[in-house]
Structures are given as C-alpha cells and as structure tokens.
C-alpha cells in the first residue's frame, strides 16, 4: 500500500482480532472478538442514549427531545413510505438505523489516542451483508405472507404492455434479487473507503514530519486541513449511510406490503 509496506497498511485497521475462544459448534469456533466488543459498546451506548428518552415527560428535556427526534424521524419516514401499516415494522427499522448509526459513529471516534483501536463494525460485509439479508428475508416473508403467489406481480410494473412482460419481468426479477447485495455492499464500501482515506491522509501527516520543514510543513498542513474536512464528511457519511440503509429497507418493505 505504501513505500514501507510493513510499517503502514491502511487496511490493517479492519482486521478483527480474536480475544478469547468461547465455544465450538459444528466444526466452527466462536470467539469473543474486537468486532464483538465494538458491537457491544455501540449497543450499550445506544441503550444509554435511549434510556435518557424514557423519562416520558409531557414537556421534554433536551435529552428526551433528542431521542424523540430520532424516533420521530424514523416513524415519519415509515409512515410516508409505507403508510399507516408501516408502524408494525418501525421497531425493526428503528433498531437497524440506530445500531448502524452508532456502529458507524463509534468507528469514527479517535479512541486510538487513548491506546484503543476502534474497529468500524459496519466496514465488514459479514455484518452489513447479514443485516441486508435479514431485511430482504423480512421483505420476502411479509410479501408472501400477505399476497401469496400474487407477490410475483411485483415483477410486472403497472401499465406494462403485454408483449413487454417477457422482457420486463426478468429485469425486474434481477433488480429485485440484487437488492440484498447492493444494500449490504453500499454500507460496507462507504465505511471501508472512508476509513482508508482517513488513514492515508493521517499517514501523510506522520510521513511529512520526516521530510524536513520545506516539504513537510506545507504537505503536513494541507493534509491536516484535508483530514478535518474528510472527518466531517465521514461523520456525514456515517449518518447518511445509516439513513440510506433504513430508507431502502422501508422502501423494500413497502413493496412487500403494498405491491407497488
């Protein structure tokens, strides 16, 4: 990746370190890993955050207002995308959105300054992929549960002329089947790319310190300025990707509930 490959590897940050072996089942070992620790941290912080919103006052305080802002954001998204029936699926989409958001943001926090090495859980497609498959499975179950085999009419958009159906239906089918992959890969790629970029620019600052004041100072200052900008951008991406994941999940559930 760089001139000193052994010393600097921007991909190393994504390595999941095993901490302790828990048990083995079916020939597979399950370990307590750094990934599990960061997921757990995100879940606990999310729980603490939500706990502040449980005061249930008529006139909310600041914290309760913040929590209600999040719940209101997701519930209004669900009701605009799906309609009143969307309320049933809001707890799932809300959990999904908040969990991904907290994992994304936790991976952005510079804990490394304290010696901890943060792992962005959502930069692993084994995590985002499973979540995407889970959303896709919910869409399939809800679709077939509500509409039976009529659910296949999803592949024939309204107003398609009869002769076009043999061409449109396979395309719709493929685009439908690609959904879990695009859903999972989008989040994984955005997180991975952002963190690689951050690491590369951070490394520029470190490397420029050894290049002398004439070259090192301008390069270091420019890289630092870029780092600040990219960090802000990555915070935005952390929110947007969680939102996109939740939004697409709600749109897919809408397909299953309302069939176009």
């Amino acid at each position: 990746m760089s001139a000193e490959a052994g010393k600097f590897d921007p991909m190393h940050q994504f390595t999941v370190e095993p901490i302790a072996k828990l048990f083995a089942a079916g020939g597979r070992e399950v370990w307590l890993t750094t990934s599990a620790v960061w997921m757990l941290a995100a879940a606990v912080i999310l729980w603490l955050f939500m706990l502040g919103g449980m005061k249930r006052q008529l006139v909310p305080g600041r914290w309760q207002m913040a929590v209600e802002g999040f719940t209101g954001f997701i519930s209004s998204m669900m009701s605009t995308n799906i309609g009143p029936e969307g309320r049933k699926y809001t707890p799932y989409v809300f959990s999904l959105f908040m969990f991904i958001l907290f994992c994304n943001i936790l991976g952005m926090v510079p804990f490394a300054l304290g010696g901890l090495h943060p792992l962005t859980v959502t930069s692993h497609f084994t995590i985002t992929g499973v979540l995407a498959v889970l959303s896709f499975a919910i869409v399939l179950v809800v679709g077939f549960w509500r509409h039976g085999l009529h659910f296949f009419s999803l592949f024939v958009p309204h107003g398609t002329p009869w002769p076009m159906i043999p061409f449109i239906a396979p395309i719709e089918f493929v685009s439908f089947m690609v959904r879990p992959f695009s859903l999972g890969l989008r989040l994984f790629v955005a997180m991975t790319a952002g963190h690689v970029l951050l690491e590369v620019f951070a490394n520029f600052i470190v490397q420029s310190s050894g290049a002398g004041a004439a070259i090192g100072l301008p390069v270091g200052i420019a890289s630092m300025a870029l780092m600040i900008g990219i960090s802000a951008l990555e915070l935005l991406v952390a929110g947007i990707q969680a939102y996109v994941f939740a939004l697409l999940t709600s749109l897919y559930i809408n397909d299953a509930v309302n069939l176009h």
Partner: protein
Amino acid sequence: MPQINQLAENWYFASQLFWLALIFGAVFVVIGLGMYPKIEATVDARDRKIADDLAAAKAAHASADGLEEQYRQQSDLSRAAAQAAVQDAKDKAARDAEKRLAKVDAELADKLAAAEADVSAARKSAMAEIEAVAAEAAGDLVAKLSGVKVAAADAKQAVKAVLHG
C-alpha cells in the same frame, strides 16, 4: 483486505454471525420492541394532549362569544324593558295627575255651586225679612199718619209691589 482474507479463518464468520445475531437481536428486543413504542406513545400522548387543549380552547372561545352575544341581547332586552317601564310610569303619572285635577276641579265647582246657592238663599231670606220689616214699617207709618189700620197682608202686597217694581 482483511474483510476477505479473514473469511478463510475458522472462527471469523461464525463469530461475526453469532455476535451480530446476539447483539442486534438484543437491540431489537430491548430498544426496538421495549423502548421505542413507549417513546412513541409519549409523543402521541403529547400530540393528543396538545390537540385536545387546542380544541378545548377553541370551544371555550366559541362559548365565550356566545355568552357575550347572549349578554348583549339580554342587556338590550332589559334596556328596552326599562324604557317601557319608565314610559308606563310617566303615562300613569300623567293620567293620575289629570284624574286628580279633574276631581279637584269637580269638587271646587261643587263647592262654588253650593256657596252660590247659599248666597242666593241668604239673599232670598234677607229679602223676605226686609219685606216683612218694610211691610210692618209701612203699616206703622200709615197708622201713625192717617190713623188707618192697614191689614198686614195689604201692606205686604204693597211693599212687594214697590220692592220688585
């Protein structure tokens, strides 16, 4: 790319799947099913309370308007009634005054008539007395002058003829 390289490790995918299922499951149950509906219920309750309060305020405003209208009508009505009562009282007072005046007039006229009658009676009796006295005096005069005894009735007749011409 460790995300791909580590797939070859025996523990990697199993651990990721296990912990994701455990932790996301817990998040879904505790936060999604436990906390989220309560927070939404709080928000809904607040929205309903605000809507109810607004409706109550609107109803109170409408009823206040109604009361004001009613009050105005009532006050108009009572003002008209008061004016009518004043007019009645005025009319009645005028009528009473007229009646009393008429009564007093009649009484005065009666008194006047009685007094006039008294006066004329008195004059009549006075006249009669004067006649009697004059007749006596005339009889006495005639007797004294001529020695002729005149009958009282004749004297009376003569006096009457002179007095009444």
